[in-house]
């Protein structure tokens, strides 16, 4: 295993993806439609990360009251919708998750 090539290669593709648009930013102007589409990126990508973590915690669909991830996520969604407070959302979501997990074991 050539570790130098491995890490160099990973660095080049990762930094390349992150930098390419920034590098040419002065010479490109996105059409309006694309600009508006990009406003949806945070919602789309973050939700696509959240759902599998919650509904498929072990790689398979697990929709049940026995799944503490779902309970924690529901609490977090409700609190976030109600108070729009990040720290409160994180704390209550985690507490609900941990408490439910503990109840299931106990």
């Amino acid at each position, binding site marked *: *295993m*050539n*570790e130098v*090539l*491995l*890490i160099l*290669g*990973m*660095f080049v*593709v*990762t*930094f390349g*993806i*992150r*930098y*390419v*648009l*920034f*590098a040419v*930013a002065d010479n490109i102007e*996105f059409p309006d*439609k694309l600009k*508006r*589409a*990009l*406003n*949806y*990126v*945070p*919602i*789309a*990508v*973050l*939700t*696509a*990360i*959240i*759902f*599998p*973590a*919650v*509904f*498929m*915690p072990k*790689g398979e*669909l697990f929709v049940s009251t026995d799944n503490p*991830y779902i309970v*924690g*996520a529901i609490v*977090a*969604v409700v609190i*976030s*919708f109600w108070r*729009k407070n*990040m*720290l409160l*959302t*994180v704390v209550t*979501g*985690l507490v609900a998750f941990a408490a439910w997990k503990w109840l299931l074991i106990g």
Partner: protein
Amino acid sequence: MQTTHNQLYSSRAKLFTLGMKDCAPLILAAIPFGIIYGALGQSTELTAWAVVAMSVFVFAGSSQFIAVGLLASGAAWPVVVLTTFFVNFRHLLYSANLLPHVKPYSQSIRAPMAFLLTDESFAVASNYLTDHGKQENFHWYYFGAALFMYLNWQVCTLVGLFIGQSIPDMANWGLDMAMVVAFIGIVVPCLHNRATLACALTAGALSLITYDWPHKTGLLFSAVAAILVAMYLEAKSAQQTNAVGRVEQGANK
């Protein structure tokens, strides 16, 4: 003159620390990931130097995890590099989203901003920009959040390398929930109409259906499809508003 200078520096320092503060919940969420990565890396044939170097030079959590997993199953380095490309491709969407906000800066500032662009730094930055709109000194805020994240990732990698193996079964504690609730805290306040709500539900449902696609391509597909659905609904509701406007205009005549 001196006062303006001091004020300038204090406002930069304030933005920098605000970035750090806003990133704190995500830092907490990332700690177990960094430690588990270090511990997993230590258990493969990679040298400790390579495990650390990957955190220092690549700095992309999920692709580092996948790399370690692939190496453990005997994959060759070009396979890992190609997989890294696909797994990190979503960062192109992040950079496109941030583009208007980095245009004022020189390449020497844009390059480190790009290097530090992760799910977490993007999540914090986009949350801040949604609340505040275009910001003159945005980079100070961004570097506060992103450098904090970077430093934390390095420390956690080292901790994982040295003591990770002695923490029993840490990967099964469900600590990934911390990242989930942090992302929920960012997404939910953005859902204020039909288009944004449909965007989230489409992305979520498709991400479950496409979960088995290789190299996280399902994630990308789901995100792009969800954005298209949102755009369609946005155009439709704009049409309706226009139609209502025309009817009202007609009535006024």
